[in-house]
């Protein structure tokens, strides 16, 4: 009489056990990475038409959740990305839609550029903590537009040390992408794959949004019904390398919106004018 419900109950328990095992898989652990490695190049997941600077290559799917990939990148970056001394991070945002080069905020005269380069010098101590930093956003013409500075006092004056948590290594990994993915749909719509570029292995992160109503952005003719982003990380060091964002229009065509490139250099020392910022006043 009770056989049927018991069978259903057992099926439920098996399902739950499978789910628990799936969730218990440790981030970045051998299983998924080894699977990805052995899959190259024999068991090919797909062929990617990658970004201009990334040659089309064979890709192998990474069987990890968004949270696991995030954690794996953090672990790799902790081991390989920052070194004690000065580190310079250069972020270059190229916008492909701009009709005007910048917008002026009428309330305070602030200029918001459509294309920009942000150069940030970070002083990293022996514990791999950022103890001082200076960041400047410039237009493509080289005009400085926004400066930000921070120091715990171990280099120059003590300047807003309470902001130092936001300057640490994780900030430069663009992990907010993963947080938004997880918030959006638990990271289910994102896909992760490993590709090879020369001697490097890159992690490709693909995510796409679908909008309930079409929207518009300056410089794009037509309404945007969906958008997608492809980002690349150095899978050895965790370094964020590149991201390209595209809009999908109502007719199904794609329009590239922007391209963000990040370079990390291990600089012997910043220029004298940057060092001077830590000892003098900066204009906001």
């Amino acid at each position: 009489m009770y056989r049927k419900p018991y069978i259903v109950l057992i099926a439920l328990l098996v399902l739950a056990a499978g789910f628990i095992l799936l969730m218990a898989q440790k981030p970045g652990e051998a299983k998924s990475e080894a699977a990805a490695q052995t899959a190259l190049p024999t068991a090919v997941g797909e062929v990617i038409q990658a970004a201009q600077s990334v040659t089309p290559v064979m890709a192998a799917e990474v069987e990890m959740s968004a949270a696991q990939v995030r954690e794996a990148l953090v672990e790799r970056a902790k081991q390989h990305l920052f070194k004690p001394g000065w580190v310079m991070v250069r972020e270059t945002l190229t916008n492909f839609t701009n009709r005007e080069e910048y917008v002026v905020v009428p309330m305070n005269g602030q200029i918001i550029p459509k294309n920009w380069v942000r150069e940030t010098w970070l002083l990293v101590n022996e514990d791999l903590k950022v103890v001082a930093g200076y960041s400047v956003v410039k237009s493509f013409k080289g005009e400085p537009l926004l400066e930000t500075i921070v120091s715990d006092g171990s280099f120059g004056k003590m300047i807003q040390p309470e902001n130092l948590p936001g300057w640490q290594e994780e900030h430069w990994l663009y992990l907010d992408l993963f947080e938004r993915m997880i918030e959006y749909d638990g990271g289910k719509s994102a896909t992760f794959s490993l590709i090879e570029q020369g001697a490097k292995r890159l992690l490709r992160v693909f995510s796409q949004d679908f909008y309930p109503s079409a929207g518009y952005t300056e410089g794009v003719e037509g309404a945007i019904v969906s958008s997608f982003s492809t980002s690349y990380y150095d899978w050895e060091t965790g370094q964020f390398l590149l991201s390209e964002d595209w809009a999908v229009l109502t007719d199904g065509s794609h329009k590239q919106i922007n391209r963000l490139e990040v370079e990390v250099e291990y600089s012997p020392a910043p220029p004298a004018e940057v060092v001077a910022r830590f000892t003098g006043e900066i204009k906001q």
Partner: protein
Amino acid sequence: MKSKSISFRVFTIVFLFLVILSGEVIAAGGSKTVSGSISGITYFAEKSVYTYTTSWTASAKSSAISNISIIGYTWWTVYRICTDDVYAYYSRSENQSNRNSNYFEDIKWIDHYQYSCNPGYFVKKSASLGNHQFTLNSTHQYPYVEYVYP
């Protein structure tokens, strides 16, 4: 009877379990709507902000239960400000409307990467605000609606 009851419970648990596993897409953000009446015709003025993975959107929507002479907005501002009070994004549009209609909507699509905060700072708030326009014959109403997220 008893076995049916157990089966039903088990089915419900399995169903809920599968619903939780499947997940659903809910964009962070929200909207604010103000309603009113112009010459007996009910109208709605709405502003919204929603955040997605690669972008965020802001909208201004004016609607009425039947057609009116002019429906839209007189001005609409969208901005995002960071915790250092620096604007990551700013946009202002003016006098956009439809004639002899009961609907007008404008949605801005904004890329996260292009408009970001300086290191050490985070998004403080994203806002959509301004005056809507509802005109019927020679009667005008310009309700102000502001939605700020979070």
